[in-house]
Every structure is written in structure tokens, then in C-alpha cells.
């Protein structure tokens, strides 16, 4: 099938505006067969509206806040509330990110940069790893022209870290051009990693019957598309950054499921993983009790 354009998952659950494109001179058969579809423009306008509404609510990355905020958010949702209360034994703060479909990449990037700021001894290795991504992207078939601007911004931000401070880091991540460039670079890195290791990852796509290349184009490289296990696995391996995702869901009991993404099993336990908290459709950054 010829694909016209990508539709964003995030807009589907909401009520779309009613379509206006109707041909008055259709036969009754055509009228019956008419599928009310949104035009690209309507979809863009609708998406923009959601983004604007989101933007008014919260910045791309927020200030840290107490985990009590989650308790408040789920005060009427018992299964979630029980898990949040259990979570308070180990974690005390979180940092929200805007729900624009890029929240995994943005939360990951911020948490990673922040960890390099707090742990100077791993900073150099982080910079080297980021520098190695140009080679990865070229091997993954990316043109330099397509990725160099995003890469330059990302490297520039990372290299500023030793002379920077947490407030400046936050301001930069709240600046669209900088923040979105970092998101795009991480999307490309994820995509390149998946393409290079397609033999390993393609079996996971059999159910959806699409190739790695299609998956990367539609789900990874597309700005605003949400992320799942495959993207997280690839990115943590590509940058050698371990991540734990704590899942809040409606299951019974107060146990929060932890999904661990370790670049390699051997290094497990020898360093601290970044922690993200996931609730259906959204990722934020989570902080352990000191």
C-alpha cells in the first residue's frame, strides 16, 4: 500500500474536528462509500492545537518536584496510588517532561546529561560515546547533511556540562531548537543502531509485518512518535547508558514493575541506571532517595 503520511498515535483517542471536504456532486453510491477522513492540514492544525495546549501546561522539561505530585495525580485511582505510595520508599522526586510524543527521548537525554554533570568521572566516556555516534550514523546509511546540525547542537550542549550548572542545563532543555535537536539526534542514533543490528531486532517486528527500515522511518525517526521497548533497548545499547523504566499500571498490588535495560549484563550492578517512570503513554524522570 502506498503510504500517504504518518498519523500520530497520540491524537487518535481524542475527538477530531469534523471533516469538511465533501464533494457536492457525488452520486449516492459515492456518498455512501465516502470515508470521512481528515486532511493533512486538519491533522496538522489539530496536532498543533494539542501541542499548544500542552505547551501552555508545562515546559519541555520541568523543574524537579516531590513525588507527592504523583500521589495527588492518582488520588482517585487506587491501583496507581498504591504503587506510588510503595515507590515513595525508594524514590522521592520526579521531573516531568511535556507529553508531545518525544518524552522518552527528552527524558532520557536530560537524565543522561544530568548524570554526567553529577558524576564528572563518567563525563569523558559520555562525550566519547556521543562522538562515536557519527560513525554509527554513517554506517546506518544516514547522510551527514541530514544529521550534522542535530549532532553539532547535541555535542555542543554535552561539552558545556563541566562549565555549566543544573539551572542552565534545564533552560537549554526548555529551548525548543536545542531540545528538539537533541531529541532528533537520539532518534537517528536509535534508528541507525536498529538498522545495523536488524538481524537481531527484525524478529520482533514479524507480528506487525514491517521491516526494520519501515519501522525506523515510521516509529523512530518521525518526530513526535512515541517510544516502546525496541527504541529503549537500541538507544541504551548505542550510548552504553543503562536505564530502568518503572511501570505504573492498573494491575493489582502495590508492586511497581521495573523493566531494566542494561547495555550488557556484565556491567549490571557496577553503575547506576537512569530511572524513568512510565504510565500508559508517557515517560518522566524519576529520582532515587539520596
Amino acid at each position: 500500500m502506498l503510504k500517504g503520511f504518518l498519523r500520530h498515535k497520540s491524537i487518535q483517542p481524542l475527538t477530531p474536528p469534523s471533516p469538511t471536504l465533501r464533494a457536492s456532486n457525488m452520486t449516492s453510491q459515492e456518498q455512501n462509500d465516502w470515508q470521512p477522513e481528515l486532511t493533512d492540514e486538519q491533522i496538522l492544525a489539530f496536532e498543533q492545537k494539542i501541542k499548544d495546549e500542552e505547551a501552555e501546561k508545562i515546559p519541555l522539561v520541568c523543574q524537579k518536584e516531590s513525588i507527592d505530585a504523583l500521589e495527588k495525580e492518582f488520588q482517585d485511582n487506587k491501583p496507581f496510588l498504591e504503587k506510588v505510595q510503595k515507590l515513595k520508599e525508594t524514590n522521592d522526586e520526579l521531573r516531568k517532561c511535556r507529553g508531545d510524543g518525544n518524552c522518552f527521548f527528552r527524558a532520557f537525554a536530560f537524565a543522561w546529561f544530568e548524570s554526567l554533570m553529577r558524576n564528572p568521572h563518567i563525563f569523558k566516556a559520555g562525550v566519547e560515546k556521543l562522538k562515536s555516534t557519527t560513525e554509527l550514523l554513517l554506517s546506518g546509511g544516514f547522510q551527514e547533511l541530514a544529521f550534522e546540525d542535530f549532532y553539532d547542537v547535541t555535542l555542543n550542549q554535552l561539552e558545556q556540562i563541566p562549565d555549566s550548572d543544573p539551572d542552565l542545563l534545564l533552560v537549554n532543555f526548555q529551548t525548543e531548537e536545542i531540545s528538539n535537536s537533541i531529541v532528533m539526534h537520539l532518534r537517528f542514533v536509535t534508528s541507525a543502531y536498529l538498522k545495523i543490528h536488524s538481524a537481531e531486532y527484525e524478529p520482533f517486528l514479524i507480528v506487525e509485518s514491517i521491516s526494520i527500515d519501515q519501522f525506523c522511518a515510521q516509529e523512530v525517526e518521525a518526530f513526535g512518535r512515541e517510544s516502546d521497548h525496541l527504541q529503549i533497548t537500541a538507544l541504551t545499547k548505542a550510548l552504553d547508558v543503562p536505564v530502568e523504566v518503572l511501570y505504573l499500571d492498573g494491575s493489582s498490588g502495590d508492586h511497581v514493575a521495573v523493566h531494566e535495560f542494561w547495555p550488557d549484563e556484565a556491567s549490571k550492578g557496577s553503575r547506576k541506571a537512569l530511572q524513568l517512570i512510565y504510565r500508559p503513554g508517557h515517560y518522566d524522570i524519576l529520582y532515587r532517595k539520596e
Partner: protein
Amino acid sequence: MAKPLFTRRLTKELKDLSLNPPEGVTVEDASTFKSWVILIVGAPGTLYEGEHFKLEFHFTPSYPLESPEVLFIKPYIPIHIQSMLSSCTKKELPPDNDLYVRNAKSSPKKTSWAFHDDTV
């Protein structure tokens, strides 16, 4: 940052297009970062061999995160995308072409797409 990201990117793409243009592609006008006119000559061995098509690209400051709007500009021939596939042997307009043209919006971004053949 001195220059916005999208103008930096377009500057580089323009340079690349001028130095290594894909076969049959010429930049006709790129005097602003808002819109470019590109001339495409139908590739040898295809139904459209030697024919000239002009495309107008409109960019926004969100480029490349947002796709450009691309329009065929006059003189143009409406083409069915399917007939541009290399496996196609005749130029053919879609069955509802006249209906579409009568009601077409000014921008392709305002078009709802219909798929005539889900097998391709």
C-alpha cells in the same frame, strides 16, 4: 546560535543540490528560504522521458522536523502517482481525477488521500 537551524540546513542543501544534483534535477529559483522552484526532467526510459515538471517547495521554520509543502506549478500535467511507478506502461489518470481537480484545495496538505490500489 547565530543562524536558525532551518536556514543553515537549507543553505547546505542548496549547495549540495547545486554541486551534486540528482540526474534531471535543476534548481530554478531559491532566492529565499520560504520557497524554491525545482525543475525536474522526466528520466530516460520512463513514460515521462524528456518532459519538464516544475515543483514549488514551501518551507517553514520548523523544517526539517516538518515536511515542506510541494506543489506542481504551471504548466503542469496532473499525474497519477501509480503511473509513475516503473512497472507502469501507460499514462493514466485516476478514475476520480476530474472530481478531485474540481474540488482540490490550494495546498496538498489540505488533501485527504484515497488509495485506489492497496496492492502496490
